[in-house]
């Protein structure tokens, strides 16, 4: 009489259910990212912080195209967020240096209108997993 050779059962039906369940969880959480690439600014949740003197007077999402006006020391200053970047569109300052010094789009970058004492800084999360691409500061 032959005895049929059978592999010992490693998994029960409950194990298989667990594996399928965890797989579904991974796909549901990350599948969307794999299908649709996320822009860098959106992936890192970048924002534009607007400061007048030392006071933060506004915080804007860098991914939402916006035009806004801040009242600076010398008068109104218009900034625009466009396509993941921000720049000084119009300024009431005499030299207009700020209008020539944008746009910025990376974390840590700063735009300044010194006569109006106005500052725009890009803020957002930095990653400590070795993929750190952001800057601590900019020399110009």
């Amino acid at each position, binding site marked *: 009489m032959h005895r049929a050779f059978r592999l010992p059962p490693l998994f029960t039906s409950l194990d298989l259910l667990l594996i399928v369940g*965890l797989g579904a*969880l991974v796909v549901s959480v990350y599948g969307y990212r794999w299908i649709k690439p996320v822009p860098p600014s959106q*992936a890192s949740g970048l924002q534009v912080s607007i400061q007048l*003197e030392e006071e933060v007077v506004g915080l804007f999402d860098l991914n939402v195209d916006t035009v806004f006006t801040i009242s600076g020391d010398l008068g109104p200053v218009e900034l625009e967020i466009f396509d993941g970047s921000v720049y000084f569109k119009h300024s009431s300052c005499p030299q207009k240096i700020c209008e020539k010094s944008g*746009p910025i789009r990376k974390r840590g970058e700063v735009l300044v209108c010194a006569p109006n004492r106005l500052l725009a800084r890009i803020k957002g999360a930095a990653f400590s*997993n070795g993929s750190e691409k952001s800057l*601590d500061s*900019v*020399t*110009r």
Partner: protein
Amino acid sequence: LNATDRLIYRIAVVLVLALVIVGMKFMAGGGGVVSGEGDDMVTHVFDSFTMGTILSVKVRTTDRAFAERAAGLVVDEVARINSIFDPMEPESEISRLNASRGNGKAGSLSREMSLVLSSALRLRDLSGGLFEPALGDLLSLWGFNDRSSSARLPDSLDIRALLDSTILSQGIVLAGKDSVVYLDRRAGRLEMGGIAKGYAVDRAVAVLRDAGVSNALVNLGGEIGVLGAGSNGRSWRIGVQHPRTDTNHLGVVELTDGMFVATSGDYENYFMADGRRYHHILNPRTGYPASCGAVSATVVGNDCLNADALATVLILLGPDRGLELLKENSLCGLIVYLEESGSLAFKATENFLKFMTPDLSGISIH
């Protein structure tokens, strides 16, 4: 297999799946810990306006109150230095010196004015007279230092007349171990914005060190000094501004404890007239903006006073003579310039490229 083996297999499977999930999370780039939160170290940022620009102080510590006190000391120190070197402030030391031109008397200098002025005169000689600390009248003619109106193209006759009427810093004589100064009637009006900001950064970093700060960065209008390391735990990552495209950097300079970097360029303070770019770095011989082709220069060094002034000197000298000066004096720098074809090229000392991870795509190396 018995029940124990099956249990071990099940645990192993679950662990493998968990590792796969963690791996995917990191690959997706969304799993990093917000910098500073993982090890309780946080970068505290303090911004204020002084010396006609922005002062940004970053202190990396677990104690916010300590960071705030340290940043306050820096703000006070830079304000104090501004009160010495601000030519628009009637009571500043530099204004008193300018007012004393031609009075026939020798005046005493504060220790700090002596240090900065003697350094400026040394750099003037090093640059063959191109770095000029007494160019205030010419800057005013162009409107580059005017806080109420925009810069403009002066009449060429006015420029010539001004240059003919002054001997600039040749009319400044230092004596008594640089503690006494005599200003000739024909001396130019002192304006040392091109070096005083660098000195202010040196002092700011010294104040932070004295206060016991281990990790900090000071950025005064683009002139930068650091202590310790930034969020990556190794260095502070500094982007070098691209002179023509604002959304890009020439590369990243990694500064470690006690290092400084300064940049000058034709791309911030300028105006266009008749299709030409007129920037604020003026050649004292011609009275017009430097036109040797250099559009941007960055210097890394052990102090910011010299780095700041040297970056300006490189713009005035141009790429060839600028690189010679860097090499002859064992300095560390980068010069970006326009070729005749209109494309950008750069020259750098070998030691500069050790500090910088370049992203010079589209820029020729020479």
